[in-house]
């Protein structure tokens, strides 16, 4: 059975382009232009993944509200925010609402589909609890590439997909400096310097909330970042 991807986007051209892209990849696609439409459909049947624009028609923050309602319906459903806005604040709010990723519309369709595939892989992996995947261990850090899950001292660190891929890229070769371009490639995103910086900042904060002494991600000014053990 085909997986169902819901696209909630008020711009018809983008909506249809994305729908075409997903369908080409073999997904079933439902598209909605606003929150009311989407919610009534979701009440009837939950999709397997939702791609949501933040501003929906006359609701500038409609996407956030939709995310909250959707999260209430299902805790596991992967949700991706896709927005023309790239403000730091939006990203933080979106991720705090339980979205799995927060992407700007600069992202190419191929990148978007890669992420969606990855999220589905994660869902799969989570459903097969005892199958060990590709595990990377670096000191206190354990990365499960299948489940896209990070643990520090045995505790799960809730990372967004982008954040996970950044940590993964850094931790795979400790001590090597990864410049921003390398991190973007690894995360399948195109971001500017400030966004990378704020991603790294968020990553540090999440680890520090578990271990206040966390200092494994080091900035090499002017070059990039590296993982130190």
């Amino acid at each position, binding site marked *: 059975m085909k997986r169902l991807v819901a696209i909630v986007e008020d*711009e018809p*051209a*983008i909506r249809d*382009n*994305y729908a*075409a*892209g997903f369908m*080409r990849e073999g997904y079933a696609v439902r598209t909605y232009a606003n929150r009311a439409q989407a919610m009534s459909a979701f009440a009837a049947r939950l999709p397997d993944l939702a791609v949501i624009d933040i501003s929906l028609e006359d609701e500038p923050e409609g996407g956030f509200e939709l995310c909250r309602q959707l999260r209430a319906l299902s805790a596991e459903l992967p949700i991706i925010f896709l927005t*023309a*806005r*790239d*403000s*730091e*604040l939006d990203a933080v709010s979106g991720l705090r609402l339980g979205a799995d990723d927060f992407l*700007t*519309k*600069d992202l*190419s*369709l*191929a990148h978007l589909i890669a992420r969606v595939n990855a999220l589905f892989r994660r869902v799969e992996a989570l459903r097969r609890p005892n199958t060990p995947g590709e595990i990377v261990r670096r000191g206190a850090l354990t990365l499960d590439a299948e489940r896209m899950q990070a643990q520090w001292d045995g505790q799960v660190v809730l990372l967004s997909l982008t954040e996970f891929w950044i940590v993964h890229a850094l931790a795979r070769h400790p001590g090597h400096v990864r410049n921003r371009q390398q991190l973007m490639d690894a995360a399948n995103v*195109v971001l*500017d*310097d*400030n*966004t990378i*910086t*704020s991603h790294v900042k968020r990553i540090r904060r999440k680890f520090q909330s578990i271990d206040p002494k966390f200092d494994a991600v080091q*900035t*090499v*000014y*002017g*070059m990039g970042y590296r993982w130190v053990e």
Partner: protein
Amino acid sequence: MSLRLKLLLLGLATLVLPWGGCQYAREMESALRAGEENSLQAVSQTIAASLQGRTDLLYREAPPPADAPDSPPDENAGYAFLHSGPYDLKPLALAAAPLLDGYSDDWPHDPSAWAYFARDDRHRFGILTGVYERMLYVLLEVRDEHPLFDAPGTNPLDPGTFGDRVWLGFEDSQGEERQVFLAATAPGPVTARRIETGEYGQQSAPLEPRIRGAWQPMSHGYRIELRVPLSMLGNGFGVLVDDRDTRGADAVSYGTLRSDDLHTLGRLIVAAPELTSYLAQFMQPGLKLAVTTPSGRVLARADALAQLTGLGAETPILARLYRRFVDRPGTRALLESSAPIYDRDHKGVIGTLEVTQTANRWIRLRDHALMRMLNFSLSTSAVAVTLMFAFAAWLALRLSRLRQASESALTGSGLVTSFPETDARDELGDVARGFSTLLQRLNEYTSYLRTLAGKLAHEIRTPLTIVRSSLDNLESEQVPPSARVYLERARQGSERLNAILIAMGAATRVEEAIGGAERVSFDLAPVLESAVAAYRGAFPERAFRTELPTEPVVIRGAPDLIVQMLDKLIDNAVDFSPAAALISVRLRLDAQAALIEVDNPGPALAAHVQGRLFESLWQSRAGPDSRPHFGLGLYIVRLIAEFHGGEATAANLPDGSGVRFVVRLAR
């Protein structure tokens, strides 16, 4: 010319008030003067009329009989006194009685009043006569090489004792000829004697105590001063000098008496003493009355000119100062008026009445008015000038405040919209409000411009996403190879568009990053070291040099932002320097701040550029570039420097070889 000066000059225009007052005072003065002249003329004519025909008063001569209808009509035929003969004496009207001491110094100095009579070179005398009140005073100066006194203590009738003698001959009031002589035995007082013939023909020489004088020798002669009551005198009067060289010798006699019978040859033309008292009844303070003969000799006068103390010492200095401005030279003379005195028939003129009045009366009147008016108008002017000056100063102060505010508003980094004087309700307030509104609009406009890039980036992103996702989809379609090239070009174009969008949003993202940045204490030196190492890799066609202090430079701030700031500075330095140029990054310390200096060789900054370099959306790049530029790089530098409590400046290197950017960061 400053506003203050202009208003001051305008204030001085009120001085036209006192000037007008002075003109008015002059007009008033001449009107008063004309009035006074008229009334004086009336007074003089009245007095002259009252003296009409009074020859008895004027000349002590009875008027010609009124019952002489056949008297000849020729002018002044009856008035012999109007035609003086060679021996006639015309006494002066004296202002005071001379002291009878034989000296001439208390007589008026008037050479024309002297009459001289001479027999020969060695024998001559001068005579000066004067009248004061009821006395005739006579001053006689006799030239005599051998003055000779009578022998003292002897009978004055003994011819052997005779020295120099002086005879006075006169008609008495009844027309009888009378003679007295003066004989002195020593210098000093002398009393006249008359010769009387007794019942039996014996002669005696009793003193005539009413005629007294003094005898004093002088060089080449002697001087006699004497007085005779006018009541004793009629018309005729004469003097005869008997000059002897030795006592008892025959005398050389000469003078104005006939030498044989000593009868008078000339007359004494003098007014009656009553004329003076007659004039006195018309007297007022400040007035002088004089009666003169038709030829101009004063017969009598009454003088009270000095009685009215003028505007002398007691007048205030201010008044005298004012008068100096008002008075024209020569206008302060006395007022004079004269009227002819006619004879009884109103045909001939027997004299002239002259009335003189001091100007004091109307001058004082005018001065009083003038002073009040000048005081008032000058103080008005002073107040007006002071007020105008103060007002001008106040205005100038407000204007300069306005100017300073507008200058600082326009040159400051951010526009100030709070403006002084906007509460004022006058035109200056309007100007200030206009300025304020203008600045507000300007402020809105610039802040709009500042956010424009971000807004544009946001607005363009959606259509760009449509283009890009369409291209993505198109790539999966069956596209003929010939169309692939266009597809590729479209993709390149959209990538460039995307790069532009990212550049446009850079400032907004930095502002956001600053808003969310956390301050930590860190050592600046290794951050710079590491960043410059990265630039060496990023810009292989430039050389980099660092000058860092050996000790740690710890500041509080966000190292990420510092690196971003450095990125922009280095971007700028690379863009404006030639290939293979050496870019220096220097870290210095001063008392309050850490200074990051980036030097690059290249074109110097123009003067007009320096103040604006760090403004948003401003750039001085000459030509187009492959990369998009929005004039945000140095603006970001400024934002980050300000976040660190510092500032960014740019200046040309001292040797003009390039430019130095300095960022101060508070420690």
